[in-house]
């Protein structure tokens, strides 16, 4: 499935993920945690398929239990004592807090997996190309070199194998020696050949003053409206934060604000923010459905 949100301008993608990931880390209110986890799951299924999500979830489950269990063992705050282990109180609040942090952690991880498939390296390089041009060039070069080096390692190790220097047989010392030889050859090869790369950069005027950074991305009307929506919702969240709508005290006892109309608005706002990519995808699907049915 093609993700509509990924097609938006990188600034929109990046703003969205920064906000969502920070909010997910930060809002420990059960409603917010629940929203974040569910939206993250939906979006990651949409992006990476149900298999990846399943894998994520199974992989996460032990971690979730671990975090949920560890917390009450070390955190003895809270007023509702359930039992004592070695004279240490286990409290209801700290168990709940453990579950909450586990949920938070998992949703953050899932959000990152979405981030990884939406904000690709070239979007990142575009975003930071203007602020840190040399570093983003280093980044782009590193990304170019990694596959090149991996291929070259294969070439070198085959060539070495054919002069009887195989990494896969011989005793440990010989193997290690042959392995190091391969790495040495690779590094020498890479550095010596980079001189031509440096020449090619100089040929094309690298180092002149006033370098610009080109991008294939255009900020159009749709980007503007989505970014506007995201920013509006972020403001709403900050507003909610100031009012204390999305915070919760776990210790000494669990206290959160009563649910009012205002808090309902903040909740809905949060859900809306989280579900923007999914909503965009659904809108796109409907549009295509209509376009097709007209033909």
């Amino acid at each position, binding site marked *: 499935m093609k993700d509509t949100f990924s097609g938006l301008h990188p600034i929109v993608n990046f703003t969205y993920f920064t906000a969502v990931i920070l909010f997910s880390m930060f809002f420990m209110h059960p409603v917010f945690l629940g929203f974040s986890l569910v939206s993250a799951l939906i979006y990651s299924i949409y992006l990476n398929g149900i298999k990846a999500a399943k894998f994520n979830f199974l992989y996460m489950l032990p971690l979730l239990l671990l975090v949920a269990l560890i917390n009450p063992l070390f955190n003895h705050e809270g007023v509702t004592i359930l039992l004592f282990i070695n004279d240490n109180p286990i409290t209801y609040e700290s168990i709940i807090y453990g579950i909450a942090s586990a949920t938070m952690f998992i949703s953050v991880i899932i959000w990152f997996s979405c981030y990884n498939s939406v904000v690709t*390296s*070239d979007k990142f*390089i575009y975003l930071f190309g203007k602020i840190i041009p040399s570093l983003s*060039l280093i980044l*782009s*070069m590193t*990304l*170019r070199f990694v*596959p*090149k080096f991996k*291929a*070259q390692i294969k*070439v*070198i190790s*085959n*060539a*070495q*194998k*054919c*002069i*009887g220097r*195989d990494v896969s*047989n*011989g005793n440990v010392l010989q193997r290690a020696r042959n392995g190091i*030889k391969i790495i*040495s*050859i690779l590094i*020498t*090869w890479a550095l*010596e*050949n*980079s001189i*031509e*790369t440096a*020449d*090619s*950069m*100089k*040929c*094309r*005027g*690298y*180092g*002149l*003053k*006033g*370098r*610009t*950074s*080109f*991008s*294939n991305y255009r900020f159009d009307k749709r980007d503007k409206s989505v970014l506007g929506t995201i920013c509006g919702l972020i403001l709403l969240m900050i507003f909610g934060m100031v009012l204390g709508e999305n915070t919760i005290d776990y210790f000494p006892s669990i206290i959160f604000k009563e649910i009012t109309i205002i808090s309902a608005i903040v909740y809905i706002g949060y859900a809306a923010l989280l579900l923007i990519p999914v909503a965009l995808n659904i809108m796109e699907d409907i549009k295509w459905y209509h376009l097709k049915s007209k033909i």
Partner: protein
Amino acid sequence: MVSFEIKDLSFFYPNSEKKALNNINIQIEQGEFITICGKSGCGKSTLLRHLKPILTPHGDKTGEIFFEGQPLLKMNLREQASKIGYVLQNPDNQIVTDKVWHELAFGLESLGLDNATIRLRIAEMASFFGIQDWFMKDVAELSGGQKQLLNLASIMAMQPQVLILDEPTSQLDPIAASEFLETVKKINREIGTTVILSEHRLEEVFPMSDRAVVMDNGEIIVCDTPQNVGERLKKNENDMYVSMPSAVQIYGGIESNLPCPLTVREGRKFLDSLGLKPNDEYITEKKQAKNPAETVICLNDVWFKYEKSGKDIIKGLSLEVKKGMIHAIVGGNGTGKTTALTLINGVNKPYRGKVKLNGKEIAKYSGKELFSNNLGVLPQNPQALFVKNTVELDLLEMLSDKHLSQEEKSNKVNEVAELVEITDRLQMHPYDLSGGEQQKAALAKVLLLEPKILLLDEPTKGLDNFFKIKLGGILNKLISNGVTVLLVSHDIEFCAKFADVCSMFFDGSVITTNTPKMFFSGNSFYTTAANRMSRHLFRNAITNEDVIKSCNQS
């Protein structure tokens, strides 16, 4: 209008007594297509690098260079970057970024152009070069030929007045090379960009050029139209002849007062106008097979693929290599030639069929048995072998696990260095050698294992004709010592000249195997230029020397 004017240019490298460039004088008109040729090390690259100050090597320089009437050194960096485009040799090393579009934009970003302008220029270039389809790809996905086209396109995006190319096709296979050169020609004809190109493979470039410059020992010995160059070299009996296109070489070997031919078509006309009678008898086989020679490499109905679900790369390959022969496998790109070699050297294993070496299955050899005193493999890229700081240490390193005295070791090293003629290079760093010398040093390394069978993968890649002849000589010396050579190559001229047996590889297996005479004279497209020129007269003549001999005898 004059593009470049070079006046009395001489140049010394630091700590060198020899002039790398000696009193160069030349004037290059705007829109000209100039080819610079000469042996490697004759100063071609040094001269070209003087035309772009940012690439000019350090050293003592006298004389002056003018670009469009202005002293070149007064030109500012920005103008220099955009007006003088320079394409280097290795397609892979010139690419800086990870995406095709970013690479195209790289130079324009340096010049500080705005987004809209860059977008337009890139779009133009992508359309002109026909690279829209791979525009959004990662550069890692491109083939060598595509990479070099990308390098050319990203230079052209800066709209240079002059395009300088330093052996741009030396790392490409013949088909990618001619595609690349066609594009350069198109740039010259359709955009009017001045082209200054240095090349080893002159077959295609020579007819395209307006003028050819022949250099030797840092001097320009001839500078004229390609035809006149051919005629003048003939008069001077210069050894530069070996690097000329076949038609010119044949012309040089035959007495006549006719104009010099450049292409196969012109060469054919030339031979026709000599009024010769068709005759097949002048050329006999170079060597009769010593029958019954024993088989050293034997592949029997071998199948191979990289993955179980992948497609077959080698399909039912059967091949026999006889002892003491130079056996050449020729064929197009991607037919599986190189993969076939990896089956023989044991790097890959077939899923069906057997590969035998001296009658014993390859899988039953231990690594040590296989590679010492038995099978030697020269990889396509010699740089995959160099580990040490000098060639000598690198060669000695090969003997490190042998129980020999210091003296015996250095004797062995000197012996092999003499064989491949790199004795004067022993103290240099392997990476400071030229491409041909690196090839020889790598060969020396492999030969120290004293192989009885030698596998070579594209041994002539990037070499000039002088080096090729030397390499051929070395191979001949080896087989006279009883070594068997199996090589894989695109270079049919080389195979025609030096191989004892040729096999045609196509679609994962060998289609036909024969002696070079029979092999190439039987083909009509896939054969040497000399044969294509003369087949209507002398069917069996496949090398330039054959044709010359036949002409002079009839």
